[in-house]
């Protein structure tokens, strides 16, 4: 049963990729297609970060450990979409012209935090296997707490690229705060026990 549900979640996670391929193929991306592709993957990266971060609160709320079984896959999809997001910025938007890209990374804070978040995802993706969990033991948990930093960087990346204070980045910020507050509460209740 779990196997089938995992396959189902896997296919569901491929939806953002399929929908953009469809839109490219049928020319439905509108006036600024490159921008739309980059934003699409960026937004889905953030959504998948939120889903990954929702699993342990859901475990507490529903008293079921089933949620944790999907967490690794969701986390790897975060890396997958973040990488496509980066690749579409580097390749489609800047044609692998690295000089302006390096300039942006160093000088523009929204590019900097976005790039930093992607770099921080790499160790998490590398250490995602069962074997690495065994080798790293307690350190594994410490390393994977980087996801909180990544989530904060990701939302800042979204807020800072907007022309003024926009609705959508604010919604993302509120979701992030709620998900982080769960952690604070979880820890507090743990201490009481």
């Amino acid at each position, binding site marked *: 049963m779990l196997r089938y549900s995992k396959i189902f979640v896997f296919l569901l996670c491929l939806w953002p990729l399929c929908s953009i391929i469809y839109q490219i193929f049928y020319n439905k991306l509108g*006036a600024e297609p490159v921008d739309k592709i980059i934003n699409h993957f960026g937004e889905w990266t953030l959504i998948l970060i939120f889903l990954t971060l929702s699993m342990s609160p859901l475990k507490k709320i529903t008293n079921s450990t089933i949620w944790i079984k999907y967490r690794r896959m969701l986390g790897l999809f975060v890396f997958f979409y973040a990488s496509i997001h980066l690749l579409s910025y580097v390749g489609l*938007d800047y044609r692998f012209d690295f000089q302006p890209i390096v300039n942006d990374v160093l*000088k523009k804070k929204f590019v900097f935090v976005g790039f930093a978040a992607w770099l921080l995802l790499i160790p998490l993706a590398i250490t995602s296997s069962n074997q690495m969990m065994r080798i790293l033991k307690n350190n594994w948990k410490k390393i994977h707490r980087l996801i909180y930093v990544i989530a904060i960087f990701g939302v800042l990346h979204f807020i800072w690229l907007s022309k003024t204070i926009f609705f959508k980045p604010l919604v993302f910020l509120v979701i992030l705060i709620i998900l982080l507050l769960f952690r604070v509460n979880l820890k507090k209740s743990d201490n009481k026990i």
Partner: protein
Amino acid sequence: MKISSRQITPEKIYKNRRKFIKQLGLTSSVFYFAPELFGTANASNKLTEYKYITTYNNYYEFGTGKNHPVERSQNFITDPWSVTIDGEVEKKITLSMDDMKKMFPAEERIYRLRCVEGWSMVIPWLGFPLNKLLKKANPTSKAKFVRFESILDPEQMIGQRYPILDWPYKEGLRIDEAMHPLTIMVTGLYGKELPNQNGSPIRLMVPWKYGFKSAKAIVRISFVEKMPTTSWMKASPREYGFYSNVNPNVDHPRWSQATERVIGEGIMSPRIPTLMYNGYEEEVAYLYKDMDLRKYY
């Protein structure tokens, strides 16, 4: 420099448009366009398709999405409409749209529009030089700046119900910028009436400045002594200055302004370099001679 739009417009479209404009009874047309456009192959001056010009808009009065203006502005009432010219003038005047259309025959102007967000379009506007309108009002010697105010109508404009910007939208120009022959009041595009989402019935167009300087749906123009504070300056003074001239060498604090993406060009087209004063350097550079453009951004 003036050039015929024949050089930058496919012949067939050009001819059709001439015919169309003649049918509208518009005669004198002047075409201004930055003639020299860098070596890049894709950096053509091809007109942006009508569908993109009219569906991809920044007009926060109707919402912050690019699709919001076209979706939410179709019932916006633009008739009757009048523009008041007041402030440091000998006599305050109010002109209706009909008055202005009679007084100032429309000419076609093909301009590149460069958005501060880093994209551009090439748009055939219909309009008349702002200086013709301003001269009707006889400004006093105190007048140093011109302040533009757009309509305030939260009933019809859903975006104005939220404090996205300081409503009504306010913009401003130095008096010499306002009197410059390239600065026009727009009443149409592609030989047709100006669609609501593009700022109907009357808007400003200052081609060497970032798009947000060209206020839409204007109801009031005031001559003032001191530099007016615009809505964008109020929203973020560090990011949006009074001048906001297109300048590839002065970045927005959060993103680069060195290049721009041409709207409607498909996913395989590269960015093109942004030109000083959006390509109108020859015509306008003298206005900013001896000014530190990093300070007066």
